[in-house]
C-alpha cells in the first residue's frame, strides 16, 4: 500500500517537474540569457539569440540525445497520448531556446572576440559529437564549458575593458584594442550583467540536472557512479 503511494507520488512529482518546472526554468533562462544592463544609464537591453547561438544550440541538443540525457524515443512516441507528445515537444522547444540563450549569455556581443568564442564553442561541440558520452560526463563537460566562457567574458574581459578599472587595466585594454585595430574591442556593461548571467547559467544547469533525474532510463544507469563512468 505504502509502495503504491510512493509510486503515485513519484509519478506526480515527475509530471510536475517535466511539465511545469522544467519549461519555466528553461523559459526563464531564455528570458535572462539575452538581458544586459547598460553601464551608463543602467537601462535594460534585450539581445535576441544570434544565428550562431541557434546553431550551437542544435549541436548541443544532438549531444544531449547522444549522451542519453534526453531520450527522444520515450519522450515522443506513437504509443504516447497526443497531449503527452505535445508537452514533451514543448519542453524540448523551451530547452532549445534556453541552450541558445545560455550561449548568448556567455558570448561577447560583437567583434573578433564574438567569433573567437563562437569558434571555441563550435569546435568543442563538434569534437564532442564523435566522443563517447554519458549523461553524467556530458553535464560535467557543460559545467566546465560554460564556466570557462563565463569567467573569460564576465570576469576577465569585463575587468580588462572596465572604465572604472585601474590604470594598468585600462592601459592593457587600450593596448589590446589598439594593436588589433579595434577588432578585440568589447562592449561594456554594468556589473549586474555578470550576476544575471551567473544566475542564468546556474538555472540552466539546474534544469539539465532535473532532466537527468526525471528520466529513469538515464538516472538508473548513466548517473550511477560506477568505475567505468568515472574513468
Amino acid at each position: 500500500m505504502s509502495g503504491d503511494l510512493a509510486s503515485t507520488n513519484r509519478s506526480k512529482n515527475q509530471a510536475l517537474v517535466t511539465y511545469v518546472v522544467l519549461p519555466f526554468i528553461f523559459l526563464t533562462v531564455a528570458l535572462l540569457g539575452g538581458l544586459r544592463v547598460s553601464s551608463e544609464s543602467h537601462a535594460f537591453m534585450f539581445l535576441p539569440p544570434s544565428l550562431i547561438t541557434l546553431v550551437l544550440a542544435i549541436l548541443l541538443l544532438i549531444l544531449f540525445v547522444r549522451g542519453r540525457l534526453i531520450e527522444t524515443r520515450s519522450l515522443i512516441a506513437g504509443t504516447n497520448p497526443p497531449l503527452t507528445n505535445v508537452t514533451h515537444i514543448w519542453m524540448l522547444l523551451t530547452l532549445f531556446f534556453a541552450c541558445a540563450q545560455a550561449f548568448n549569455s556567455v558570448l561577447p556581443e560583437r567583434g573578433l572576440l564574438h567569433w573567437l568564442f563562437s569558434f571555441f564553442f563550435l569546435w568543442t561541440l563538434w569534437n564532442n559529437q564523435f566522443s563517447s558520452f554519458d549523461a553524467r560526463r556530458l553535464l560535467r563537460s557543460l559545467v566546465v564549458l560554460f564556466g570557462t566562457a563565463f569567467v573569460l567574458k564576465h570576469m576577465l574581459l569585463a575587468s580588462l575593458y572596465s572604465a572604472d578599472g585601474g590604470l594598468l587595466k585600462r592601459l592593457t585594454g587600450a593596448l589590446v584594442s589598439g594593436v588589433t585595430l579595434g577588432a578585440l574591442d568589447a562592449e561594456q556593461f554594468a556589473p549586474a550583467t555578470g550576476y544575471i548571467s551567473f544566475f542564468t547559467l546556474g538555472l540552466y544547469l539546474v534544469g539539465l540536472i532535473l532532466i537527468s533525474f526525471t528520466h529513469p532510463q538515464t538516472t538508473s544507469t548513466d548517473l550511477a557512479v560506477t568505475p567505468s563512468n568515472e574513468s
Partner: protein
Amino acid sequence: MANSVQQRFIQIIGLALSAIYATAIIWIYATEPRSFREVATGAQVAVGTYQVDQEKFNAALTLFRRDQFRAARDEWQRADSAQSDPKTQFYIAYSFYREGWGRVYYDQDLFKQGLDAVNRAIALSATPLTVDDENLQMHTAAELKAELEQGTERNWGDVNPLKVLRTRK
C-alpha cells in the same frame, strides 16, 4: 485512472502557463523595455488599461499656450511615457511645429521630430485624428503632417521674399 487524470491536468496547466510565459517573453524582446517601469507601462498598454497622466497633460497644455514648448514637451512625454496616446503625440508634434516655425526659415531638426511624432499619432489612432482645441489652427493630424512635410521640403519657393508674410498656424 485518477492518477492518469491528474497527470493530464498537470500537463494542461503546465502547457497553458508556460505558453503564457513564453508569450510574455516574446513581447518583452519585441518591445525592449528599458526599465521595470517601462515593463509595467507596456503591460498596461497591452491589456488596454493604460491612461495618460491627466494632471501632467494639463500642465503641459498650459505651458504650450504660454509658448514654452520645450517645457510642454517634457511634461507631455512624462504624461505619456509609453508614447501610446494619439492626442498627446499630436500635441507634441504641434509643439515641435510651433517651436520650429520661423518667418525666414524652419528648423529642420525640430520639424523632422514633429513629423515623427505626428506619424506616431496617426498610427495610434484607429480613426482620422481630430483635436478640438480652439487655440489651434490645425485640428487634424493630417493637416499638421502636411504642414510639417512642407516645412522639411526644399524648393524655389524658399527664396521668395513674400515668405516673410506667412503666419504661424
